[in-house]
């Protein structure tokens, strides 16, 4: 158990609807990340957070926003979902160790019709 849970695990929605994915950690790790995984692209960083209310963009941030009002929760919002945002979304937290290992959740599979 990586101590990080994502919800929902599966979601089907329609184009134009808002979607929020939730990531919850059981510890107080400072850094949290949202990635998306698509065939042929591997994992691409959407947004990350380095503390409560402290967030920054990754390489594929267009169409996404994030919020972190508590250390343990990191939310990813698609304001108006598009079919190109159909993907598997992974949340991760960074360990407070020399390696800075990322611990990933089980993923949220989103389908936008």
């Amino acid at each position, binding site marked *: 158990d990586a101590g990080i849970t994502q919800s929902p695990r599966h979601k089907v929605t329609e184009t134009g609807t808002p979607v929020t994915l939730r990531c919850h950690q059981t510890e107080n790790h400072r850094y949290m990340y949202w990635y998306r995984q698509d065939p042929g692209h*591997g994992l*691409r960083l959407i947004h990350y957070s380095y503390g409560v209310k402290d967030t920054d963009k990754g390489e594929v941030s267009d169409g996404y926003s994030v919020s972190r009002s508590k250390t343990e929760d990191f939310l990813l919002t698609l304001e108006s979902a598009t079919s190109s945002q159909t993907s598997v979304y*992974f949340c991760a937290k960074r360990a407070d160790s020399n390696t800075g290992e*990322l611990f990933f959740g089980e993923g949220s599979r989103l389908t936008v019709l």
Partner: protein
Amino acid sequence: QKEVEQDPGPLSVPEGAIVSLNCTYSNSAFQYFMWYRQYSRKGPELLMYTYSSGNKEDGRFTAQVDKSSKYISLFIRDSQPSDSATYLCAMAARFNDYKLSFGAGTTVTVRA
């Protein structure tokens, strides 16, 4: 051109064979190199970590980094069916914000 290139395979080997995986990269600032293993419908998990150049061995796994060639490798000796997974290379330039750049992943199947 992608910052990190990784052959997606798939790669199929018999049990007991040596699996050889590699990635090339273009950003000379990368100095933290990792290999993650991802089983089907699971999140990635860290397998090997190397800082800067050199070799690192952990059981049946060996990671190599050649910064002069911008090339990293992972070798799996005496491969087992349980090694069947997707292997992703990842790297970062700075430790502070640790924005990892991932390869596309190589899918490996070890046949019993």
